[in-house]
């Protein structure tokens, strides 16, 4: 067994072990900690599979933001009474069997792929020059299947609307609870003050180089979101009221600008979601900039949750 193979096997074993731990943990906190570790290792697995864009997104969203989301959800659920009847053995066995079946089908599909596996990667690369981009992943996301990506951003807006709708009527328009304690740790305040500007610059840079190197709007937006959340956790700023105009504008800016660009396609380039040739890279970056804004605003709002105080006049 070569060095690489040994490493791969060990990585896979640890990942599977962590997954098992996540499911079997007794308390939610332990499960979420295992889940964050699982996400981190999965990011390294993606790097090992030569997919740095996915690795970055996994580390940012899968491990970081989702972990925070889960832990704050579990904190909110804490005071609620436990369900009367925990799931019975039959239900658990059925769920386990179904999960094993799906995993087995996916594994079989991957293991029995013909060699070489069918792939559109060469064609994606072949037409890269027309898009003006250097990163095939970004080209796929924004140029080849732009409609899908726009719809994904719409789903994010719907998710935020769904989270907000959980609030009681009288709280509508108010602000969500603060993300941190009333007397935050001095170390956290220091961290927020120093890392937020640096992280913001890095986030923007990550988005900007995404055109030609691994990176992109989602990754950059996730980093910006994390920086805003750190600042809110240090109580240097508070979650905004959900009725505020700029917030709602920022939320819909991403899919909105995307849709407008798509609608302008018939006028400027001949068909829905076509970009004018020779001008594609600036248009793509323009759309992506607004996507970064929307993602950076959406993720912290999902973590902050529904409003829990009345809007003050």
């Amino acid at each position: 067994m070569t060095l690489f193979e040994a490493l791969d096997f060990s990585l896979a074993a640890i990942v599977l072990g962590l997954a098992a731990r996540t499911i079997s943990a007794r308390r939610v906190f332990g499960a979420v900690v295992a889940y964050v570790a699982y996400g981190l290792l999965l990011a390294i697995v993606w790097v090992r599979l030569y997919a740095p864009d996915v690795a970055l997104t996994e580390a940012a969203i899968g491990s970081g933001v989702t972990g925070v989301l889960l832990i704050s959800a579990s904190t909110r659920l804490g005071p609620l009474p436990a369900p009367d009847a925990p799931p019975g053995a039959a239900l658990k066995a059925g769920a386990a069997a179904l999960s094993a079946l799906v995993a087995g089908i996916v594994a079989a599909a991957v293991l029995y792929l013909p060699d070489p596996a069918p792939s559109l990667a060469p064609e994606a690369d072949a037409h890269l020059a027309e898009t003006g981009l250097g990163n095939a992943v970004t080209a796929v996301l924004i140029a080849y299947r732009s409609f899908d990506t726009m719809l994904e951003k719409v789903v994010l807006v719907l998710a935020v609307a769904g989270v907000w709708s959980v609030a009681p009527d009288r709280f509508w328009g108010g602000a969500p609870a603060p993300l941190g304690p009333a007397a935050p740790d001095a170390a956290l305040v220091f961290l927020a003050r120093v890392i937020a500007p640096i992280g913001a610059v890095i986030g923007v840079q990550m988005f900007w180089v995404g055109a030609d190197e691994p990176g992109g709007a989602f990754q950059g937006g996730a980093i910006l979101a994390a920086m805003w959340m750190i600042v809110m956790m240090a109580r240097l700023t508070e979650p905004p009221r959900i009725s505020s105009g700029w917030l709602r504008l920022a939320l819909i800016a991403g899919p909105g600008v995307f849709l407008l660009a798509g609608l302008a396609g018939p006028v400027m380039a001949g068909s829905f979601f076509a970009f004018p040739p020779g001008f594609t890279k600036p248009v793509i970056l323009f759309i992506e900039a607004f996507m970064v804004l929307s993602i950076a605003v959406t993720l912290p709002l999902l973590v902050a949750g529904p409003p829990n105080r009345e809007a003050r006049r």
Partner: protein
Amino acid sequence: MNDALLAAAGITLLTVGAGLARVLSGREVDGLMAVQLLGTGGIAALLLAASATGVAGVENVALGLALLASFASVAFVNASPTRRGSDRDENR
């Protein structure tokens, strides 16, 4: 040289991965520390691999991880119920 760096990356990963045993036993805060160590070890392994293989973008992944690794840990410690005393009317 590249092989040596890759071996170092692998050893680092496996080492901090072994530390994850703390996620199984011990208090939950120990699991949190294990995850923090995993993050830092992962960053080190990524940097070593980036230097050894020259694949584009791996350093960026390490940079992103550096920013986010502590973000989750900080959020976890922050979310501890005993620390959020006066803000805990949120579920009413």
